[in-house]
């Protein structure tokens, strides 16, 4: 990553100073751990750490075996609101796991289309449907008010966490 960014700067330089100030900040100085550690799970001694399908596939399988957790156009080239989107997504994830306490069995998937945010998750059937509907309405309304745009929850339910376990490591 670091080297490619550098090469990019070198290639751009002869063309003029159109993009160089923005690119300067992309040179990483931290040690490159992304390929080795991040997004991967350590094997336990007893081999009893449950992994969902999403967790079982390391990041380099994104778009091959699994898909993205955030769907938006901010991170494309010339995308708008990059940092805002990232922070909002983090807020939504924390809000979901906190509001649906102990019920969320999967990653929270956030899909943005136009001004509409769709939040998908797999939920354990540990509370009655009536309570789930209460939480649904509450989450949608509060997030909509917070993010100033319509928010829809797309919930799927499973009987227990065991149903989403893909393997143990």
């Amino acid at each position, binding site marked *: 990553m670091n080297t490619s960014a550098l090469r990019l700067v070198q290639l751009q330089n002869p063309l003029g100073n159109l993009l160089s100030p923005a690119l300067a900040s992309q040179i990483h100085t931290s040690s490159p751990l992304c390929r080795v550690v991040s997004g991967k799970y350590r094997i336990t001694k007893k081999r009893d750490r449950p992994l969902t399908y999403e967790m079982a596939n390391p990041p380099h399988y994104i778009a091959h075996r699994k898909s993205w957790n955030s769907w938006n156009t901010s991170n494309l080239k010339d995308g708008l609101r990059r940092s805002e989107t990232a922070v909002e997504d983090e807020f939504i994830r924390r809000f979901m796991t906190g509001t649906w306490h102990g019920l969320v069995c999967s990653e929270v998937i956030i899909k943005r289309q136009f001004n509409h945010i769709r939040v998908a998750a797999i939920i354990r059937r540990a509370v009655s449907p009536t*309570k789930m*509907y209460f939480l649904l309405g509450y989450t949608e309304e509060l997030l909509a008010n917070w993010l100033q745009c319509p928010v829809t929850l797309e919930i799927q339910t499973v009987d227990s966490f065991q149903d989403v376990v893909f393997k143990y490591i």
Partner: protein
Amino acid sequence: MYSNINLPRQWSRLSYIYRTLTTLEGQTLPQSTKSSDGISPPPRIPRGPTDILQALAATVGPDPTAAHYKYHDDPYLIPLSNFRKRSYALSAEAGRKAAAWIRDEHAELFNTREWDPPGKMKTPYFNADPHIDAFAPKPLYNDESKVTEEDLKYTINNALLEDSLKIFQLLGGTSGVNEELRIAFLQLLCFYNEKEPDSMEWLEERWFSANIRERQAATWKLGGLADKIFESLEPKTSEAYCCIIQGMAKYYQAERAYVLTQEAKDNGIKLSTSVYNSLLGCIGFLKEGTALRTETLKSLLVEMEEQGISPNNETLTSCLRSISAWGGGKMLQQLALQIVAEFKKLGIEPGLSAYYYLLCLFCKERGPRVDILSGILNDLEKRESLEPKEPTDTNFFITAMGVCSDHLQDINLAERLHALLMKDDNYKLVGDAYKESIYYRHFVTVACRHAPFERTTQLLDMLVPNVYVPEPTVMEEIIKTLEVGGAGDRLAQVWSQLVVFGIAKRAKLVERLLSAMCSCYQYQENEVKEKMRAAAADVLRYSQLAEDKEETKDLRSPTQKLSATTLSNIIELCSDTQDKSDPNWDTVSEALQKLRRSEAVGVPNKPQVLADVAQKAATVGKAGIAAVAVTYLAECGFEEAISASTQVLGVMLNRPQEEVKQLLQERQGLDSLHPSALAIADAYHLAKTGAPAQDLDTSTSSESDSESSSEDE
């Protein structure tokens, strides 16, 4: 690779500029339809912001195979009974309300645009960009709030009655508010009679709110704030008179309304059409007797003409509303038709409300059959669209379907009406949840009674359970239809539907279902028969579960017990097997035990069934079951007990009937018999003489023996 990126970007920018230029030019072009070169583009049609969305929505029809879209599409979250539909939708709305409460209470936390750096904040209060009213915290008012006339304007425009009352007081009452705002406030008070209306924001609450029929009584608050504000207005304009008279007439304070009308007329103040409409609507509260009322109605209409006030659609509706409230009779019906004809001459077509009142007037429950509905439908079907204009418009479809079902009993008319309701987006005229369910209750009832069987089942498949969940009375109607149609397969399904809909504990309904199953059991195919047996066995299991639950949990309302007829029907269905190892025999024996422990209500209406079962059980080799059945028959004092006991004993001992009879008469050598046979012999004597052959001790022991023997098998 990266070096040549810039060029296409410039190109795209250029083409963008080009495109904007052409569109700018294009916007000015199609103003007129004529042009010199013969090409005439159509004039520009102005579009609203939601027109495209509405056009898109019009392409999607209702989907009866899925739950309503307000419910979440997940097997765990799809409601299947009326109770669940209601509680799920209201729970979701309760969650929304909770969130809105938090937003309003902690408005200071919802104040900035999302994660804007503090430097970018424009105002300390609310910086969302663009500002969306629906997402903004609503202001809260209490006794310490500092309020201005702007606040009063805001609350009046949003129909927040309680808040506006408070602000009005804070502003210093009638003296602290200017004239214009006072009239606006008066209008609000008159419209709602100083009562907070149901919020528009909470759709589900409105949809499910219990059908509170507007009380037809003088509920106007005499000497209330509205009256005081009206007094304070000086000079009293026509606007002020109009709104106070309309308010009084709307809440049936007829006398005061008429006094004020007279006052206004004396002062030469011009009144509006709506004032006369509301006065026409409350004649019944002013005058007694049909003749007097009719006279007043006519004089009011004449007065309108004198004053040069042109009537409108609502005038017709309020006339008919008054007339329909005065009772029935030929004279009133004639009057109503006259009025409708007269208005048609003026070019005013009756709306849905007018038709609703006509139906009320002509189609009385115990009156002669009058078919005005087909004429009404002819008219409505011709119209381009049905626009809701008055709140009573939502009464039309439910009343018309009621007329189809009870008054005319005509399925063709009902289907035409339903087609009209389903056309375009007429479904919004169905009203609320309560009206919708009554509408479908009438529709399904008339279909069950008068439609061909295939059409009925087709209709049921479409409506149940996502659109409509039948109530117990309608379910009975459906069971009757299925019985007549001989659809054993569907009858077996009905049982599972009863469980899902939460009405399986209604003993009467279950009894009806099982007798229907029994009556058409004979001519079903084997596969269907098996399903019906399974359903019957499940009925017993379900009731057992319900009783167990009742014992463990102290429930407030006791569960209804299955009747003896139901049990004997279960026995009849489940005993239809030649296989000794069939698990249905367990069901039979359990049902028999239940009967003997007299846990069922009443006695079976077909004792012959039990006699037949006893014989069948004996043939198969289930002596215990046979013994219990015969004993029960004897204990209940049925005549069938005697013949049954001899027959069963004959089968068990493999001897001809005469010999058995003799054996029983002599009571000799009975002791050496199998305990079950002994029990049957006892039953024989019980039936014959009214007392068991041996003394009580031995009979009980033999009974227990018979039970144990049945378990042994």
